[in-house]
Every structure is written in structure tokens, then in C-alpha cells.
């Protein structure tokens, strides 16, 4: 193995990949939440569609989208590899264990929360991204995403799945944001509190913003 692949497949290397792709996906979520929040203008989707059109057709954004898909895939595959390594490291479990005495449940459940998010991601892309891009490839025309949102979020079960997805995202980010900085070695007395504050704020604001979208449409606050 070359030094490069040796590095990335080591325990710290796998964590490095998780941290880098995790922070990349965190920046993506800012854009995603920002543009989707245009529905709150409540202008019949005019602003949202304007920016959706830009994101869906701009060649630079479309090229970056390949990187986004790669980022998701690396984060998911590397997550499963880490889960395997970590699971194998303790073949016999404790009969009596009290982990809540030393750590938070969500920090110990990143694999579970990540798997829930993966299931949500499949449902979510099947609702919007996959049909829209398929249509673009087939006909060159974009779908009316705003109208699709209004239709899809009429179903209370879909709304509940999206809210559950946002809760998973909240706990995943609550640990993941700070954890990424620790993995990258950014543990410094001058910045620890700042990173912790931003991490917590981010983990609350972004999932809350996302959760408000299906809820607002279901209750007709956004039409």
C-alpha cells in the first residue's frame, strides 16, 4: 500500500475522512437550508424557484454536485467501515455496563443516527432530487419543485418522517460538529468554547429550519 492509502485506511485516517467529509456536508446543509428557506417568503414559490433554477442549472454548481455526491458516499462508506472496526474491537460485551456515567447517548450512537439519516436520505432524494434530475436528463426541463413540496407535505406521515429525520440530524450534528474539530486536532483553549457554541447553535438552527418547512406547508402557513 502506498503511504497515502495507508494513511487513509488507518484508524486516524478513517476518522480524518469522516471529519473532512462531515464538515463539507455541514457547509452543504447551510446552502441547502438557506435556499429552501426562500419558501418562507410565501410568494407562491417565486424566490425559491428562482434560486432552485440557479442551483439546478448553473454549470459550476452542477460540477460541484459531483463532489457533493462523492462526499456523501465517502462519509457513508467510511462510517460503515469504522462501525465494523469498532464493533470487531470488542467481541464479548459487558454483562453490566453503565456508559451513561461517562458519555452522552448520542455521542455513542453516531452509527445508529447516521443509518437513520441514510434511510431518510433515500426517502428524501426519492421525493425530490432523483425525479428532478431524471427529468432534466430525459427532457432538459426542471420539475416544479415548489408544487411537489406542497403536494408531498400534505401527507401527515411524510411530515412526521421528515421531522424524525430532523431530530436524527440534530443529535448527529450535536456530537459530529465538535467531534470533527477534535479529530482534526483543533483542540485549543482559545477556541474550544467557540467551537462548542457554534456546534450546538448549528445543530439546533439547521434541523429546526428544515423541520419548519414540511410543518409550515402541512398547516398551510406556506402556500
Amino acid at each position: 500500500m502506498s503511504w497515502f492509502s495507508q494513511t487513509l485506511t488507518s484508524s486516524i485516517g478513517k476518522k480524518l475522512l469522516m471529519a473532512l467529509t462531515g464538515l463539507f456536508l455541514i457547509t452543504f446543509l447551510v446552502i441547502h437550508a438557506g435556499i429552501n428557506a426562500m419558501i418562507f417568503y410565501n410568494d407562491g414559490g417565486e424566490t425559491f424557484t428562482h434560486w432552485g433554477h440557479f442551483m439546478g442549472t448553473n454549470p459550476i454548481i452542477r460540477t460541484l454536485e459531483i463532489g457533493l455526491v462523492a462526499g456523501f458516499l465517502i462519509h457513508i462508506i467510511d462510517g460503515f467501515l469504522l462501525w465494523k472496526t469498532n464493533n470487531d474491537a470488542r467481541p464479548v460485551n459487558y454483562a453490566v455496563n453503565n456508559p451513561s456515567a461517562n458519555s452522552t447517548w448520542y455521542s455513542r450512537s453516531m452509527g445508529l443516527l447516521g443509518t437513520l439519516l441514510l434511510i431518510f436520505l433515500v426517502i428524501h432524494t426519492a421525493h425530490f432530487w432523483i425525479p428532478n434530475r431524471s427529468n432534466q436528463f430525459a427532457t432538459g426541463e426542471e420539475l416544479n419543485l415548489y408544487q411537489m413540496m406542497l403536494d408531498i407535505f400534505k401527507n401527515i406521515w411524510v411530515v412526521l418522517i421528515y421531522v424524525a429525520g430532523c431530530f436524527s440530524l440534530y443529535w448527529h450534528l450535536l456530537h459530529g460538529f465538535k467531534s470533527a474539530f477534535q479529530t482534526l486536532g483543533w483542540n485549543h483553549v482559545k477556541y474550544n468554547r467557540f467551537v462548542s457554541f457554534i456546534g450546538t447553535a448549528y445543530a439546533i438552527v439547521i434541523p429546526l429550519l428544515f423541520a419548519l418547512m414540511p410543518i409550515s406547508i402541512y398547516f398551510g402557513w406556506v402556500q
Partner: protein
Amino acid sequence: MEGNMNLSLKVWRQSNKDTAGGFENYNLDSVSPDMSFLEMFDVLNEKLVVEGKEPIAFDHDCREGICGSCAMYINGRPHGPLKGVTTCQLHMRSFNDGDTIVVEPWRAKAFPVLKDLVVDRDAFDRIMSSGGFISVNTGNAQDANSLPVPKEAADDAFSAAACIACGACVAACKNASAMLFVSAKISQLALLPQGQAERSIRAEKMVAQMDAEGFGACTNTGACSAECPKEISMSNIARMNREYIGAKFSSTAV
């Protein structure tokens, strides 16, 4: 005596590496609250010997919290319920009359159970011999002030060197990761001038050996540091990550 306790103990018994183990129940009466946890085990073992039974094997040496030998997973936590305390320094006053106490060995693939509560921690020694040292050429001792060490670096190195390699970090970690131990050992040398010559190759080799031993990776839950009897800081793991990633991308060792 007044204040003495009656306890039920559930202890892991396993005759050797290759056989399956199981829990045995023991009742121990009149346990003094002033006994240490290991002294309580001594009393239990004397009782077992008198009864013609096999005493419980457990690791111990200094019994004053500095050697790192004792290793018991007590009621679901390494070294029991107290913070910053080894099993030998845990006293029975931390328990109540009538308690049931469950005692298990450290559980990790890299720490196979040898007998009862004794696990094989040679993996730590192999990690140390892969790079956890400095090479010193023989000759006259240097003048004490020829190597200036900033006070802060000395303090941080000392805090990392407080690690007694007991393995509680591995035992506490949901991934059985040894990163707190390895990071403490890498840090104590990386912070001092004497450690500079082998700094990058040390990080590379010790992490490679750690992985080869079958320890898990770090999820940054902080369980290791919370349970560490020497309260080694998680900042050491961040330093190890910097040392390792920096070494991998800049050293000339291909």
C-alpha cells in the same frame, strides 16, 4: 462490627484463554467499609481457599494507585464509581450494605482474558516498543540547563506521563479504542526537546501498532477521559491526531 456490610458479589470466572467463562455468585458478610476493594477480594479469596475452592485471579501490585496493574470493571464502570481512582484505591465505603456488585474483566479483542479478571495487556507493551521511547547516546550527563523546557510544556508532558497504562480507557470506550493511552505516550515525548528527533516516526509507528493490535477507532465520546484514574485529557488525542496526520503527510518515511 457495627457499620460492616453484607454484600453479594457476581464475579466473572474463566479458567483460561480458550474456555468460555461465566458469572459466579458469592456472599460476603461483615465487610469493613474501610477495606479497599482489593482487600475485600483478598478476604473473599481466603474464604474460598478455606472452602477448598479456586481463588479468584486478579491483577494487583502497588495497591497505591500508581502501577496500573489493577483492572476491574465494577458495576458497569472501569475502576468502579469514583472519579480519578484506581480499583485498589476504591474503598468499600463507596458501597452500601446489601449491594450486589458485578465485577468483570476489561473487554477488548486486544485484551484477551487470561484467567478470571486477569487480561493480557501485552498489546500496550508492543505499542510502546514500536516507538514510545527516545534514543539516548551514552556519554557524560548534560548540564541541566542546556536543554531549556518551557514550564507549560513540562507541565503538559507531565500530565500526559501520569498515564499508568491500566487500560481503563480501552475498557470504557464503546469501540475498545486505545487512543487515550497512545496519545498520552506520544504527547509526553512530543512536548519535550528530547522527543523531537524521533517525533514523526514515533507517531507513525505507534499508531500503526495500535491498529495492528485490533483496538477500535475514536468516536470522541470522552468516556476514556471521564473514567481515566489519572484523568488524562482528551486534548492529548487531538495532539496525537495532529502528530500523526502531520507526520504522514510530511515525513520522508514512505
